[in-house]
């Protein structure tokens, strides 16, 4: 009971902090410490959000961004888990491929964008490639680690049960690596959102990135802030959803802690 009360107190305190930030923002805007052309108050940003949703503009932009993010992330997840599983389950593969990975991994994705544009043009395919390329690394590396760290005793159990290779992957290795894989997928979610916005800005693809860019160019600061807030909410909500999925899928881990 006491612990419960403490949790609520913390929650209330964190809300109070957020509320005071918004109040401070409103105060700065009202006092016109920054020109209203560049900084709208939270009231104007909120009004713009409401307007954008009621006339449908923001819905379509949000849908565009979510679509880019989801396709890129899913492609990265499928490819990352598959490649990571192949590399991670073989020591020989790890030895051969690791140096190449070490070269590719720290490569900034922004360096890949001009290459992608040159090859694929300012298209959805370019965006998908760039997002997937950026988001694949955390997933792939986590999968390699997860597969390499499977308890060897479990492989011996699998051998003595004469399980097929496919059964070993799906019943032993993949579940054992799942905490690592899901953690990698959560990291990649953020990367996918960032790259979605970047691609929309660079290639003029329909989405919140494009909306933010056009609003800034037209000095519609309220619309600009509405877009930024919506991107923040998107990041937050997807991350919370991912955490909830992780919690459910890894319920067995709760008993180990």
């Amino acid at each position, binding site marked *: 009971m006491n612990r419960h009360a403490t949790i609520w107190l913390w929650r209330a305190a964190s809300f109070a902090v957020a509320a005071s930030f918004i109040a401070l923002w409103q105060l700065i805007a009202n006092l016109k410490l920054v020109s209203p052309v560049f900084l709208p108050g939270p009231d104007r940003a909120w009004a713009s959000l409401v307007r954008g949703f009621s006339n449908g503009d923001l819905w379509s932009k949000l849908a565009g961004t979510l679509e880019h993010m989801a396709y890129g992330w899913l492609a990265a997840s499928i490819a990352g888990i598959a490649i990571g599983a192949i590399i991670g389950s073989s020591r020989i593969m790890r030895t051969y491929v690791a140096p190449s990975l070490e070269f590719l991994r720290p490569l900034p994705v922004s360096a890949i964008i001009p290459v992608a544009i040159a090859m694929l043009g300012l298209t959805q395919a370019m965006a998908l490639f760039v997002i997937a390329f950026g988001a694949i690394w955390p997933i792939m590396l986590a999968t390699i680690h997860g597969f390499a760290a499977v*308890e060897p*005793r*479990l492989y*011996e*159990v699998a*051998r*003595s*049960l*004469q*399980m097929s290779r496919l*059964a070993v992957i799906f*019943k*032993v290795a993949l*579940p*054992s690596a*799942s905490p690592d894989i899901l953690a990698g997928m959560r990291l990649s979610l953020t990367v996918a959102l960032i790259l979605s916005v970047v691609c929309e800005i660079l290639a003029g693809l329909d989405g919140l990135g494009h909306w933010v860019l056009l609003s800034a160019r037209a000095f519609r600061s309220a619309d600009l802030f509405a877009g930024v807030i919506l991107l923040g909410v998107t990041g937050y909500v997807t991350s919370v959803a991912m955490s909830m999925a992780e919690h459910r899928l890894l319920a*067995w*881990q709760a*008993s*180990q802690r």
Partner: protein
Amino acid sequence: MANAAKRFEVIPGQPRPQIAFTEVTLQLGGKTIIENLSLGVRAGEFLCVVGASGCGKTTALRLAAGLYQPTSGRVDFDGQLMLHPRREIAIVFQDYGKALLPWRTAAGNVSLALEAGGMPSAERPARIEELLRTVGLPGHAGKYPAEMSGGMQQRLQIARCLAQEPKTLLMDEPFGALDAMTRQGLQDEVLALVAASGATVIFVTHDLDEAIYLGDRVIGLLPHPGRIGIELAVNLPRPRDQLSTREHPEFLRLRRQLFDFIKATEQ
């Protein structure tokens, strides 16, 4: 002592041993772990293997399981060269915590062996329940291994091994990490299970009393490299009893003999 190793020979008219080691030598990383080991285990026999640490007890068990291949010599199971592990041979590992799937419940862990054996999913629940009852875990089907005590986890591993319907049960110090009371209880349960199933058992232990209490025969290995140093037939009446068997004069005689052997190997 070194020359006390007995050669295993097929005696005409005698049934073929279920597991046969013929002049088995195993080298790992340039070191000879086991040298010229010959040994036959009859179907239905309960063989205990003891020895100082580093004498290759566990390695011998892994050879019998098909997890290792000998450098020279051969291991046969039912007259067939052992080239890989097989489902008729179940292994109970000492580290039960590592040998169970932590993401599967007790029922799920038993199910793994049934799935590997190709049992249709409709038949599994009844069989799982029966196996969990056999090892004294009824009502724990929905628990994860991490929610169970060490003794319960080891019971669960035994249940999974029984689900393989093994002809041979290989046990690698299965009760080494358990407290004395739990251990005695499990010893008697294993004896009852084995008597009921008729399985052959190779039981590795460092506990000499346990070896004599359980076995039909006890083999003591000599270290560096591992080879047979002593072989004792245990002619104690069955069913065995924790009190009267351990007080039996024959038990005490064998115990003395085995202790002297181990003491000599440690010098």
